C-alpha cells in the first residue's frame, strides 16, 4: 500500500482521508476486476460465436452460390421459359420479358396434342406422337433395372461367400462402370452391328434388327455397364448384415437358402431400395447410349422408335431450337421422375406395414 509522509498535526484527518482513498481505490479495483472478469469473457463468447458463424457461412458460400445459380436459378428460368416462346432469336432476357402469343400453356398443350400443326419443318400433327414414343422407349429401357438388380444381388451373394479373390472380382465387375460411355457405345455398335461377332454368335440381328432388338442392344449395354456399382453397394450391405442373426438362424436349423431370404435380404433391403430408386432416377435420364449408337429421332425420323425422352429434348434443341418447348418437356420429365420416386417410397412404406 502507499505510504504518505504527512505532517503530524494533520495525521488524523489525513489518515481518514487516506483510508477513504484506499477504500475507494479498493472498491474501484474490485469493480474493475469484476468488470474485467465479466466483460472480456462475454465479449470473447460473442466473438467466438460470430467467428464460427462467419467462417461457417464462408465455408458453405461457394456451394450455396453454385447451387443457387446453376440449379435453382436455372430451374426457375426453365419454368419461366416454358411459358414464353423463345427460339434462340434475340437474348434470353428479352424473350423472358415477352409473353407467348399463343397462350402461356402453348407448349404444354402442344406436347399432349395430336391435332395442333407441326412444328417448323417437322411434319405430323402435334407433339403427342413423339412424346408418347420417346416416353415408351424410356420405360422400355427401365426394364434393365430389375434385371440388373437381380443379377447384382446374385453376384453380391456369391462374392460375399468366404472365397479367395472376391476383391479381384469386384474390381473386374466394376471396370465397365468407370469406362467412357462414348467408347463403350461405339464398341457396342461394332460388336452388335451388322455381321458383327454377336450377331454371328446368336444368329440374330441386333443393331440393324427391328425396334425391340435395337432397344434390347442398348438394354444389354446399360445393364452390363451398371452391374458393378450395385454389386459394390450390395457387397457393402452384405458385410453389414448381423452375423449373430445368421448364426442364430443356422442353429435353429435354417439352411443357407432360408438364411439368405429370411435374414440377409430383409437387412439388405435399405441398400436394395436405395439402388432401385437411384437407378430409376438415372434410368429415366438415359440419353448417351442410344444417341451414340443410333443418332437422334428428331434429326432423323427413322431413329425415333428408339429415341428416349431426353433424346427428344436434345433433338428439339438441336434441330428446331425451340428452347421453350425443351424446357416444358424438361419440367414434365422432372414431374414424372418425382412421381416415380414418390410411388417407390409409397410402395416401400406399405411393405413396412405388411
Amino acid at each position, binding site marked *: 500500500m502507499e505510504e504518505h509522509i504527512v505532517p503530524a498535526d494533520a495525521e488524523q484527518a489525513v489518515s481518514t482521508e487516506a483510508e477513504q482513498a484506499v477504500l475507494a481505490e479498493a472498491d474501484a479495483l474490485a469493480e474493475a476486476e469484476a468488470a474485467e472478469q465479466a466483460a472480456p469473457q462475454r465479449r470473447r463468447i460473442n466473438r467466438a460465436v460470430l467467428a*464460427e*458463424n462467419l*467462417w*461457417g457461412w464462408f465455408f*458453405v458460400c*461457394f*456451394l*450455396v*452460390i*453454385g*447451387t443457387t*445459380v*446453376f*440449379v*435453382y436459378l*436455372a*430451374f426457375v*428460368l*426453365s419454368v419461366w*421459359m416454358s411459358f414464353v416462346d423463345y427460339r434462340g432469336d434475340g437474348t434470353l*432476357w428479352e424473350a423472358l420479358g415477352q409473353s407467348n402469343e399463343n397462350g402461356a400453356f402453348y407448349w404444354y398443350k402442344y406436347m399432349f396434342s395430336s391435332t395442333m400443326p407441326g412444328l417448323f419443318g417437322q411434319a405430323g400433327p402435334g407433339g403427342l406422337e413423339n412424346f408418347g414414343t420417346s416416353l415408351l422407349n424410356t420405360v422400355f429401357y427401365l426394364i434393365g433395372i430389375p434385371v440388373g438388380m437381380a443379377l447384382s444381388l446374385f453376384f453380391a451373394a456369391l*462374392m460375399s*461367400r468366404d472365397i479367395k479373390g472376391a476383391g479381384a472380382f*469386384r474390381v473386374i*465387375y*466394376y*471396370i*465397365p462402370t*468407370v*469406362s*467412357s*460411355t*462414348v*467408347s*463403350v457405345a*461405339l*464398341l*457396342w*455398335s*461394332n460388336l452388335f452391328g*451388322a*455381321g*458383327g*461377332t454377336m450377331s*454371328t*454368335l446368336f444368329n440374330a440381328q441386333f443393331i440393324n434388327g427391328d425396334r425391340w432388338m435395337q432397344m434390347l442392344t442398348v438394354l444389354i449395354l446399360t445393364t*452390363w455397364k451398371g452391374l458393378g456399382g450395385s454389386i459394390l453397394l450390395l*457387397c*457393402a450391405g452384405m458385410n453389414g448384415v448381423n452375423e449373430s442373426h445368421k448364426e442364430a438362424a443356422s442353429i435353429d436349423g435354417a439352411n443357407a437358402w432360408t438364411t439368405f431370404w429370411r435374414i440377409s435380404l430383409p437387412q439388405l433391403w435399405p441398400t436394395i431400395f*436405395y439402388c432401385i430408386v437411384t437407378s430409376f*432416377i438415372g434410368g*429415366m*435420364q438415359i440419353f*448417351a447410349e442410344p444417341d*451414340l449408337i443410333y443418332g437422334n429421332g428428331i434429326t432423323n425420323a427413322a431413329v425415333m422408335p428408339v429415341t428416349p425422352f431426353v433424346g427428344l*429434348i436434345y433433338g428439339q434443341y438441336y434441330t428446331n431450337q425451340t*428452347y421453350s418447348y425443351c*424446357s416444358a418437356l*424438361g*419440367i414434365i420429365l422432372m414431374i414424372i421422375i418425382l412421381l416415380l420416386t414418390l410411388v417407390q417410397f409409397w410402395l416401400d412404406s406399405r411393405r413396412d406395414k405388411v
Partner: protein
Amino acid sequence: MSEETNVVAAASAEEKLSFFQTVQKGLCKFASWLGFGSKYYRSNKRRKKIFFDVITYVILIGFAFIMIYPFWWMISASFASTRSIMVGNSAWWPTQTAGEQYGDLFYHYGNVLTIANGSGTTLFQSIGVTLMFSLVPVTIGIITSTMAAFAFAKLNFKGKNFIFFYCLAGIMIPGPSIMITQYCIFTELGWTENGLSMIIPGCFGAIMTAFFVRQYLFGMPTAIIEAAKIDGAGYWRIFWQFVVPLAMPAIAAQFILSFIGSWNNYMGPLLFVQERSWWPLALLVRWFDQESSGSEQNAPAVMAISVLALLPVLILFAVFQKWILGSIMLTGSKE
C-alpha cells in the same frame, strides 16, 4: 474319406434292393462325394463348401469374362486393317494375312492422328482440353465441396440445417430438365465459345461430393478441432491442417471418381461446347465415329481412338481401385 464311414443305414438294407433303390442309392453316393447328405450317407460340410466354392468360381469367372471380353474385342478390332475384317471375323484376333495388313500393327493408331486433324481440332489439343475440363473444375470443386462439408459436419452457424437441406434438395432437379436453360445462360455469358461453361460451374463444388465428405467427417473426433481451437488455430488453419489431411481418403476417392466422371462426360460438352477447338475427347470420338465408321479403311481407327479415350481412365482405376471401391462401399456413392 472311405465310404464305410459315410454309410448310415446301408448295411441293413443291403440284401433286398429294388432297381429303383439301387439307382437312388447310387445317386446318393454321388451326392455324398459332393458333400450332400441323404438317408444313406451323412453330409460332409467341408466337401459341400468345396462343391459350392467351385460353382461360385465357375459363375464368377464366366461373368468376369463377359465383363472383360468387349474390351478385348475393342483392342483386337483396333488392330484389324479393314472394316470387314474388323466386324466379321475377329472374335479373338483379326484373321488377316500379311497382304491384307497395310502398314504395321499400329497403323490405325497413327491413322487416328491424321483423321483427327480434319475435325477442326487435333488429338493432342483435345486431350489437353479434356484434362483441363477434368482437372481444373474437379480440383477446385473438391476444395469448395470439402469446405462446405466441414462446415456442415463440424461448425455451428445460423441456418446450417436450412442451408444443408436447401443444397440437398437441389439434387432432386434432374440435369436434363435444366440443361437447355443452362445452355441459354452460358450462351448469354459467352461461355459456350471458350470452354468456360465446362469449367466454372464445376468450381463451385458438387452437392453429392459435399454430402459424402460430410458423412465421412462425422466419424472424425470433434475433440481434435476443439484442441486446435484452444491452441489458437483459426478455422482456415484447422481446415487445411486437420480436416483435409484427416479426410484425405474420402477426398481422394471423390476426386478420382469426379475426375473419371468429368473425363467421360458426354452430355455436358455436347450442349455447352460450341467451338470445335474446345472439343473434349468425348466429342472428338463421336465426330470420329460419324466421319469414319462407314469407311472400309478407317473404321478400325474408330476403335483405336476409343481405346485411347478409355485407357487413361482404366489406368487410373487400376492404380487407385482400392481407394475407389473402398470409398464407394463406405459412402454409398455410385458414380
